[in-house]
Each structure stands twice: as C-alpha cells, then as structure tokens.
C-alpha cells in the first residue's frame, strides 16, 4: 500500500523535469520517478528527445514505443519507461481519428510523417505532450493506471515553448484533432496537476538559465515546480575557517605542526617518505588548495542566494564522484524523499 506522507507536491500527477543540458535532467527525472514509486506506487517515466538516455541509465536495451518496466522501487513500487516517438504517436492519431493506419504506414515509409512533424514543430510537441496527458488520465478498473508520470523534458531554453502547446498550434488548424488535443493537453499542463521542476548546478550559467526559465514559465502561465540543485559538493572547511582560507590567512605553523603530528611530515621538515620534498612546499600547496576550495564554496553560496530569490522549494543532490549507476539512482531517490520532493 502506498504510504501517505506530507510531500511537497500532493496534487501533482505530471512532473516535468527540465534544466540546462548536461546538468542532470535525465538523472533527476529517473531518481524522482523512483522516489515517487517508493512504497508501492506505479510511475511512468517518459523520454521525449529520442536519445535513449533512460535505457542507458537503467542499463536495459533501447526502449521501444511501448511501456516497459524499468525498475522496482523500495516497498514494491514500479517504474515504467516509455520513449515517445513522435512519428509513432502521429500514426496512432491518424488511426484513431481517420482510420488511416495503412495509409499512415505507407506515408511513414516515404518519410512523409517525419516531414509533417518537421514543417510544423508545434505538431511534434503536441504529440509528445499529448502522450503525457494521456498517461496521466489513463484509467484501469476505475483507478488511474499511473499514480504519477515523470517527463525527462527538453532543456530550459525550449521548455516554455514546448509545453505551451496552445500558442504553438495557434497558427495551425483551427479545428480537428490537433487543435482539440492541444486544448486537452493545456487542461493538464496548465493546471495544478502538473509541476515543472528545474535542475541546475551551482554555477553561473545554469543558475541564470534557471532564472530565465522560471520567468518564461510564469509568463506563459505554466506551473513552476521546485529547483533541484544537482552535483553539490559539501564544503569541507568550517564557516569560520572558510573566510581565512580564501584570503590565504590560515596559520602555516599550526598546519605544519598538525601534519607532523599526523605523520605526514617528518621531524626533519620533509614530506614523509620523500626526503627531497620540503615541508614548507607541502604546506603551501595545501593552503593554496584550501583557498581554491573556499573560493568555489563562496561562489556556490552566491549562486544559492540567486536561487533563493526564485522563491521555489529547493532540493539538493550530492555530486557522486564515481558517476551515476542504478545503485546511485536509488540513493538519489531516497535523498529526494527525505527532502519531501516525493
């Protein structure tokens, strides 16, 4: 049974995850899906950019256009994955509305379907978001098929346009399936059923992009979710030492003394086991590295301040030096849960 707890997004059934490219959208979307599935829920994870990033991350063969179970969450939950192919989604459409499956397949072989989604990029986006909407609304035996849907979405620079399908198809057909689909999509995406989360690093460009993205989403009336700060490195110096370290004012004598006490330096004033390396050189190197570290931490703090100005719930995930594998995903999911993102 799903455990009821006070998480931050109780009404949300569609979690859209965006961010500057390379900040960790796919990783965070997957971790969030696992977190949401924990305790016995069914969650669908959607990929829309045709990169098979989910298959790589979960270490399974490339996903077909078909929902597949990707992972089991703690407490019996399940995460399913689907890589949405706009061409296939369009064929589904032609079949549903015009009974055109066979002609559709022929057109696909000619490359015509690809052509159609290229001349009108808005159509492609409506098909992708339409699939998300359908999964959110889908029911089985009177209950929702999925408790939540998580979308690994396009990057921040394109997200508002991608989700704001109404404007996108404004110049297209005024009636017909694409139009009504766009309206139906907006009913879900523009409502409190949806939250658009932004992934960032504590670096200037991604934080700037996040702020721009939040502004654009708000202007388009789309529901801004939380900010996930990814790849955070813990500050190693105490707040008191931080300022002195940055100014290179740490006491070299104390450091030398401590290093000797710990056996790193010898009584003869050299690096243990390396008699040709003077102690002073090692101490100077450590002080320099401490200054660099303090500088980074200070910079990160100012990025945190900028993020705070956005006034959104914020979650942090640590930098994992060995990279992200399936085991690490469970760890990241648990961290999102303890911070009440799920």
């Amino acid at each position: 049974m799903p455990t009821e707890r006070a998480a931050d997004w109780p009404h949300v059934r569609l979690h859209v995850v965006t961010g500057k490219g390379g900040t960790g959208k796919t990783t965070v979307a997957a971790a969030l899906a696992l977190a949401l599935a924990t305790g016995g829920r069914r969650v669908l994870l959607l990929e829309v950019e045709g990169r098979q990033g989910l298959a790589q991350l979960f270490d399974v063969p490339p996903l077909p256009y078909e929902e597949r179970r990707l992972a089991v969450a703690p407490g019996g939950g399940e995460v399913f994955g689907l890589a949405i192919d706009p061409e296939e989604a369009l064929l589904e459409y032609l079949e549903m509305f015009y009974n055109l499956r066979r002609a559709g397949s022929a057109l696909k072989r000619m490359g015509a379907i690809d052509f159609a989604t290229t001349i009108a990029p808005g159509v492609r986006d409506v098909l992708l978001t339409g699939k998300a909407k359908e999964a959110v609304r889908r029911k089985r035996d009177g209950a929702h098929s999925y408790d939540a849907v998580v979308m690994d979405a396009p990057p921040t620079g394109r997200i508002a346009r991608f989700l704001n399908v109404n404007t996108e198809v404004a110049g297209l057909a005024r009636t017909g399936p694409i139009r009504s689909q766009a309206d139906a999509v907006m009913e879900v995406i523009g409502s409190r059923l949806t939250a658009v989360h932004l992934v960032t690093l504590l670096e200037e460009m991604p934080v700037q992009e996040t702020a721009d993205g939040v502004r654009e989403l708000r202007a388009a009336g789309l529901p801004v979710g939380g900010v996930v700060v990814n790849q955070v490195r813990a500050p190693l110096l105490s707040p008191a030492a931080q300022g002195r370290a940055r100014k290179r004012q740490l006491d070299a004598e104390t450091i030398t003394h401590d290093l000797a006490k710990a056996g790193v330096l010898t009584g003869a004033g050299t690096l243990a086991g390396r008699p040709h390396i003077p102690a002073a050189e090692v101490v100077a190197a450590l002080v320099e590295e401490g200054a660099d570290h303090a500088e980074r931490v200070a910079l990160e703090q100012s990025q945190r301040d900028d993020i705070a100005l956005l006034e959104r719930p914020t979650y942090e995930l640590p930098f994992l030096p060995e990279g992200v594998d399936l085991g690490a995903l469970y760890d990241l999911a648990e961290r999102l849960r303890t911070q009440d993102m799920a």
Partner: protein
Amino acid sequence: MTGAQEVAPRSPTLDVDALLDDREVRVVVCTGAGGVGKTTTAAALALRAAERGRAVVVLTIDPARRLAQSLGLTELDNDPRPVEGVEGTGSLAAMMLDMKRTFDEFVEANADTERAATILANPFYQSLSSSFAGTQEYMAMEKLGQLRRRAGAEWDLIVVDTPPSRSALDFLDAPRRLGSFLDGRFIRLLAAPAKAGGRAYLRVISAGFGVFTSVLSKLLGAQVLTDVQTFVGSVDTLFGGFRERAEETYAMLQAPDTRFVVVAAPERDALREASYFVERLEADAMPLAGLVLNRVATTDAPDLDAATALAAATRLEAVGRPPVTAALLRIHADRVATLHRQRRLADRFTSAHRAVEVAVVPALARDVVDLEDLRAVGRHLATRD
C-alpha cells in the same frame, strides 16, 4: 602549477602559439559537447592571437552573461565590434550570433525588396528562422562564410565558437540535414502545383500525394500548406538551393587554412563526443589542430597521495585537533582522487588517438569573466611542460 599536464602525460603537446602565429591559418573552429568551455576557449584563443599581433574576429554563439559584457557584446547588432582593452599591436573584434537576424539579412541580401518582404512575413519562414532544429548551426556556418568573405581587409584570423548542441557533430551535420529537408521532395511536391511543369509530374504520383496532402491539411490546416507553398515559391532559385549552400559552407571547412580545436572536459560523455568528432574530422579530411582538455584537476603536492592524506585527516580528527588541517587534507585527497579519475578517462582517449596533440587548462576557482581571466586561460593553453 603541476599536475594539469599529468592528466594527458602520454600525448604530444599542442603548440597553441605556433597555431596562432601561423599566418596560413585563417580560421580556427572550436567544437565540443555542451558546457565544456568552447566559448571560453574561443575567446581566450582569439585574445591571445590578437595580443600576439594578429587582426582577429571572434564569433561567439552563447557567451555567459558576464563574459559577454567584458567583450562588449551587449550591442546586439549581429556584426563584429572592436573589443576594448586589448594590448599590443594586433586587434580583436567580437560578435555574438543572432540566428534569426542572420537569416533575415541573408534573405534581404539575396532577394529584391518586395520578394524579401514577402518571405520575411511568411509564417513558415518565421518558424523556420527562429525555432527549427539545425537553424542555429546553419546560420553559424552562414555567418562564418560572410566573415570569411570580408576577411583580408579587416581580419586575418577568424575564431569561431559553435552552438551548444548536445553533440559536437551537429555543427557539421545539422546544416546539411536542414538543407536536404528544405530542398527535399516533399517540399518540392507541395510547391509543384504553383508551377506549370509540376502538374504532369504530379499526375504520375498523384494517388500517394493526394493522401499525403489531405492528411497534412487535416492535421495542420490548409493554411500551413499554403504558407509552405508560398515560401518555397518565393525562395526558389533565390539561394541556388539550401542544400547546395550547405554543401558550399561545409566545403569551406575543408579549406587548407582552417583548423579545428576540439574542446572536452575530462569526463566520460565529453571525451566520447570528442572521440566521435576527431574520427569524423579524419574521415572528412578536415584538419584537427588538437584537443583542449578544459577544467582539469591539478595539485601542487602530487607526492602526497589521497590515501595518506585521508588517513592523516582521520587521525587528526580522532585526537581532537581543531579541524582546519584535517579539512585541508580532505580537500587535497579529493583533488588527487579527481585527478586520477580524470587521468584514467583521458588515457582512454589518448590511447585511441595517440597522434592528437593536447593542451590542458586547469579547473580555475572562478568563472572566466573578463579579459584578465581570458589571458590567464590563454597562458594555460600555451603552457608546454
């Protein structure tokens, strides 16, 4: 600083100054995966070349805000502007690509006023010039072509940054993909009814085509098709074809005065991208200057290994010493571990591409935001030890 070069110890070193001083080299293209430091590298190379006496123009695509300000890129006129504060006898001009504007200007330069106005007002053109996949790459190439045609009198070296695509190969492939699409058979078929000769051809394939247009107009509305038809009708014969134009700019990248600099961070994904790109350059006979490994971990105390440092930190914490020294030891251990991890990743690249020359830039504590920072990056690029 020691350690930086150690990340790629077995590779030949890229002689950046020799590259920048070589008067035969007139175009340097910086490519790589997103976020690795392409824009920074392009700006640093351009400044260094200028301060070594060359007349340089740098075409940036998406500079970080503060860097853009220091380069005077706040005026968005889509044309190079002189950069203030450059030392020496050379000169540096900089610009930031505005893709829509580049497209608009391209149309205006190639069509009479009336026809240009029709094209610019066409809804399909507007979507093509502002939101199509590949347009940014196409226009970056187009702008490079323009700068090249103006070179000689104004500049003797063009340094180009490339768009922030996921894949570095997009810069090479996207323009041709877009060109083929715009010159493709469906676009031609749609445009055909507008021309007399088209009809006979149409009759032959009309069965399939009928289904095609009827499906399209059901989906998109008849207006969209009309827009595409008008667009194709008005650009026809105008540019000598989009694909041909893309082929021409592509060929320009194979010119003997062009060099590629591939930028990578010492991370798995970025190095994989760099590998693909290097192999592609070889396959297409495009000259690679070398690889820039950017944001590499360094240490001034390479002889104090991570395990020793960590053990010492634990010991100090156990005896209750004030935490500063233990913290410094942990910071050091982290750096050494990172450096080793990066070296393993770089090794995989260098052993697959033994002849590729490498320049290494350390991970700096702060972002690269002004000319002084760019000079520092330039010095690191040119350091050979």
